Structures are given as C-alpha cells and as structure tokens.
C-alpha cells in the first residue's frame, strides 16, 4: 500500500526550475523557447484545448498526443509534474498577437483556391491535410512558413514518392502507406495507386518535397498576414 502511495502524482512536489530546464531541452524543439509555439502549438494560453486541467496536462506530457506529439514516458512523476507546472505558468504570458485580419483572411483562402486541396469544417477537397483545427496545432510563424515555403515544414506523416513501373511509366504522389513489399500513393488528382515493389523498376522517397505550391509570389504581404490570422483562428469543428 505504501508503495502505491509513493506513486501518487499528488505526492510529487513539482519544481518549476527543473520543469523549465526539461522543457528547454526536450519540448522547445517543437513548442519553441518559452512555449511560443512552432511545429507544436503555443502553450502560452490560460486554457489548453487538449490539456485543460492539471491531470490531463500531466497525461499529455507523459503519454503524448499521437501521432505528432511524443510522450515523455521516461520522466519521473516528479519531473512530469515539474514540466506541467512550468507549462501552466506559461498561460500568464500574453498569447501571440497576429497583425492580420482573420475575416479578410477567410476571403483570401477562398480566392486563392486553398479549399481545392484542404478541408475546413467539412468544406473543400481533402487532398492535403485537414485545416479545421490547424490553429490549435501550429503557431503563426509556422503557419506563415507553411504557406510561403510548404516543403520546409512537412507534417510528420507526409512523404512524397516517385515510382517507375516495369513498363517505364512514372507516377508521383503522396504516400498513403508503405511496407517492405508494397507501396500505395495518391497522385495529384487524388487517385490511389497500389504497387508491389517487386514489380517496379524503382521507387524513390522524395524527402523534403511537397505537392503544395508556394504562395509566396501570389500573396501580398497584407494578404499573407490576413491568411495567417485566419488559419491561426481555426480551432476545431464548430
């Protein structure tokens, strides 16, 4: 019984300074120094969507949020509690302020044909990743880069492939699945292709390539900021 009591999270007295050090070395790569966000969301909000209370926050830290957020299962109960305490403290920092106008951004999104590849609240074409809650996942700076230099920030599970069939036909597309014996990909038109690797002349991973075009040249500075503000405001199904 004593042994179990020792395991209780309420027994562990958190140390914010320790939490800060762990965060800097283990979390900041994705959540930014001071939790301002990046590949992972900014954590500088009073209430976090997927970690609204202390218990869920500790759970998110220890077990992760698949597939993008790894669990820090090796941390001790006290260390998890310490990081959680530090993350909670970040909530008092003012959230990122974005210069753009989200309402105008929504119009840019429509005008530039983003919906031709992305689903938002069930509307659009599902070729690229769903953006319904993208603002809860990425911060403003990351979203800005995603629009002007898509290939520099690929989602964890996104990979382009090029295969050449025995007959010499080349197919490029986004990997839907791959194992040592077969590969499935979707081409630009969204059609699914499935190949046995043994029947291919070759297949290549196009690491670092994206099928999303850069919009750097098609957006004015103002349009870009509006678009980013719109994306940052997308926080889940209404």
């Amino acid at each position, binding site marked *: 019984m004593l042994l179990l009591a020792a395991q209780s999270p309420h027994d562990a007295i958190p140390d914010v300074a320790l939490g800060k050090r762990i965060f800097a070395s283990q979390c900041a790569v994705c959540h930014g120094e001071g939790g301002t966000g990046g590949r992972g969301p900014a954590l500088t909000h009073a209430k976090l969507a997927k970690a609204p209370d202390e218990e869920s926050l500790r759970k998110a830290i220890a077990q992760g949020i698949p597939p993008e957020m790894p669990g820090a299962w*090796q941390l*001790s109960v006290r260390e998890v509690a310490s990081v959680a305490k530090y993350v909670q403290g970040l909530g008092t920092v003012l959230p990122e302020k974005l210069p753009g106008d989200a309402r105008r951004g929504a119009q840019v999104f429509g005008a530039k044909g983003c919906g031709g590849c992305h689903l938002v609240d069930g509307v659009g074409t599902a070729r690229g990743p769903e953006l319904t809650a993208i603002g809860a996942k990425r911060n403003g700076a990351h979203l800005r880069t995603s629009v002007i230099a898509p290939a520099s920030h690929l989602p964890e599970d996104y990979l382009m492939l090029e295969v050449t069939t025995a007959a010499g036909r080349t197919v490029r597309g986004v990997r839907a699945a791959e*194992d040592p014996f077969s590969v499935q990909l979707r081409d630009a038109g969204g059609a699914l292709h499935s190949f046995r690797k043994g029947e291919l002349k070759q297949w290549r991973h196009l690491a670092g390539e994206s099928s999303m075009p850069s919009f750097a040249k098609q957006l004015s500075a103002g349009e870009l900021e509006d678009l980013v503000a719109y994306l940052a405001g997308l926080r889940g199904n209404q």
Partner: protein
Amino acid sequence: MKHPVAVLFLAGAALQAQVPYERIVNGHKEPGNWLTYSGNYAGHRYSGLPELTPANVGNLRVKWAYQFDLNRVETSPIVDGGVMYISAPNKAAALDTKTGRAIWNWERPIPADYQSIGFGRVNRGPAILDDKLYVATLDCYLVALDLKTGQQRWAAKVEDYKPGYSMTLAPLAIKGKVLVGVSGGEAGIRGFVDAYDAATGKRVWRFYAIPGPGEPGNETWAGDSWKTGGASTWVTGAYDPELNIVYWGIGNPGPDWNGDSRKGDNLYTCSFVALDGETGKLKWHFQFTPHDTHDWDATHVPLLVDTEVRGRMRKLIVNPNRNAFYYALDRTSGEFLAGQAYAKQTWAKGLDDKGRPILIPGMEPSEEGVLVWPSLNGATVWFSPSYSPQTKLVYVATREVGSTYFKREAQYKPGTFFAGGGETRIPEKEQWGAIRALEVASGKLAWEFRLVSPPWSGILSTAGGLVFSGSNEGNIFALDAKTGKPLWDFQGGGAVMANPISFAIEGKQHVAVAAGRTLYVFGQ
C-alpha cells in the same frame, strides 16, 4: 475392477515422461517438433525441416489462426506430438495443431496492484520438460502445468513483484531444472538467474547478476549503488549440454541514463555470463558495454556455434548486440575473438583487442540532450536472431534509429521508475531497419533486406534454405537464406513482434508466427 492389469498399465503410462530432457538435447533428430524456446539449446532458432524451399515457399497459405485477447502477442510456441503450447501474460493454452482448436486453457489472475515498470505486459513463451509445461508470470511466479490438462502442478514464488520484479520470458528447461530471469531494470531491482527443481518447484540455485559485498565485481559499483543496480535477466538463455554451461544475457545498470551514482564498470550488467548448470556458479563473464548509460541491455539469446576461426575449430558464443557491435567469443573461456559494428553507431571508435569499446567522448546523456546511434532500443533487442549451420550466417533484425539522450535526476523509491532520463528519437521518416545476414566468425555483412521501419520481429532459418521474419507493417515474409531475396509475403494485419517457429503437422512442414493479436500457422 474387472481388468486390473489394464488399469495398472494405464497408470504406468501416465507416469511416463512425455518430453524427457534427452529428447530436447537430441531435438535435431525430430525437427517436426519444437521443444525449446529457440528450437535447440544452442539458441539457433533453426528448423531442420527441408520441405519448404525457395522453389515452393510461394505456395504458403494460412492453415489456421488463433486470436488472443491482447494486442501484442510475443509468444514463441512449443510443439510436441500434434499439440501446440502457447502463452500470454499469466495465461497459457494448448492447441490441436490439425485444427487450431484450444484443448485447454489456463489463467492466473494478475494482481490489481501489479505494475509493469518500463516495459509492456507481454509473455514470450512457455517451456516443456517431462510431463509439464512451465510459464513465467508477470507477478513473478514460475508455474508448472500438467501437459495434458493445463491443471497446475506447482507455483513457485520467484520474487516479490511490488518493488518491480516481473517475468515476461520463456523459461529454459534443462535436465531436471527450469531456469528463469527477471524484468525490472527500470525499477532499481537486483537481477538474478534462478534454477528450480522441475519436479517440485524448489529453488536449486540463484545467481545474482550483481555481486554482493565481498564478492569479486562488487567493487565495480560505487557505494551502495549495487543494491538498486538493475541487471535484469529478461530474455531466455542458451545451454551447452556437453560443457553443462548455461549462458545468459544480463540487462542494463540502473538508473539507466544517469550513471553518476554508480561509477565503475557495473558488473555484470550488459554482459554475457557463463554459469555452471549444476550450481549456478559463475565460470566467466564478458561485458559488452561497461558502465552503460544508454539502456543497452545484453538481454539477447546467445548463439552457440562450433566453427573454424583462423584455421582452428572453436566453440563460439556469438551475439549481435543492442549496442550495435557483433561479437564472437570462445564459449569455454569468454575470450574475445572478433567483433565489429553491424549497424550505425556513433558512441565508440571500435573495439580494442579484448573487445572493450573505445569510447568517443561526449556521448553520454546530458541535461541538454546528446544525439547518439543506436537509440535506447538498440540496433537489435529481445527478439531472436537465428543461425543456419547450412549457410554459416547469423541473421539479425536490425534497427537503424538515433536518439537524443537526456540525463535527469534519479531517486530510488521501491516500485517506481528509476531511470534518470530518457530519449527523443529522430523523426519516424528517418528511421529504418533491415534483416541482415552476418558471417558467423567475423560479423561481416553478407547481405541485407531493407525494411521500411525498425523491426520488432525475430528470425527463423530453415534447412530448406529460407529465412522467415516479419515487419511492423504486418508483413510476414520469407527470404532466400543465401541471398536475402524476397520469396513470399503475407499481410497479417498487425505488427509482427514475435519469434517465428517451424514444425510439422501430419508430416508436412508449417511455420507459425504472431502478428498483432493473431497467431498464424502457414503450410502448403
């Protein structure tokens, strides 16, 4: 009462041992059965059945399947006389090999306060000897079951599970004894290998994998650190009946990633030990990773191989290690003969002439994190390698993953995580794996078959010239043992995290391996 003679005859038959020790020693004479975890005592996971070959393996199809009520099946079955014996955490069953139907089931409740500290709730298989089946349980009991009915004959308490001792391995049954080791290397245990009397369950000997005060090797632990130094023993060992030596792999020191409190080499962690089968006394040891700080357990199935090295016949023990180096040692003395890296590693310049790693400075975990290959799961881990006496190649499922290692505080509290850090792996897209074939005496690469992701599957090689293994993506497959060329594959619908075996049903060769929650049996 009318036929006293017949009654007596039946009673006498029931006393006859079904699987005497001699049958296991001479298992190569009956390749249709699979009588010990690795197929033979030498750890080879090699089947002498020649029927399946590169020419006909393409005909393999599922004959039957058995579903477990758990997601991760790691069991390596035992097969004897048309019955397959399987296990799961605190469970065992006997299946009719003709139909796959369960003929008995056994279960021991897992205590509500049991916790697995640092590993999954799994079981890797049972052991068979005489008229009993042996199962090691999570709550650290060794249980003997009646082969015919699954009824319990005896249960021996190996250790108290509350501070973190547990068992996930298949026991190793040798003459009159059943050997087990323990998990708990992340809970500050003091690991050991135990031998129990096969008939009664009484403990015959215990070898502590960390020497106590006054024993040689205790000085390789600073202060009292030996008391909570880990040295788990969670993978089944090998046995040389002629030398009567048991070979066992020892796990990592604890706390895993913070070695500050345990200055020294930390014997016998990350070592192979050679133990007298009769007494459990240490004959020799060889340490692969002195003062490990990356969780590179040497908990591997040792491969015992007799072969020529530089013109001389040698009795070898070889091992592709979690630390990414391959080792060939003399198994009579522990002398290091050869070694080289068989997977990417960034922590050692190489091995010196005694086999000790020549360290690259700055590769220990730190507060900020240090990127090192291989990751904490190593270049390979618990799943079995295989050795084919035909090709003289060692087959190993290899993981190509690097990790940023962190060092954290570590405070021992019984029954809690005592690890002192952890890792963040490189992105999944940059991880990969391979089935590699290595020359037995040197570890030199003969061929590789590339995998999309780092594997968790063991390997079986067969007399027909095949190698069987599996992938995380659910493929169960056969390669040409000489060239690595893929010959057959089947999508099993769940990651393969188990060791394949081969056996005969009514004289025809079959292969069994689990994927996800399903055990598949394939035949022509």
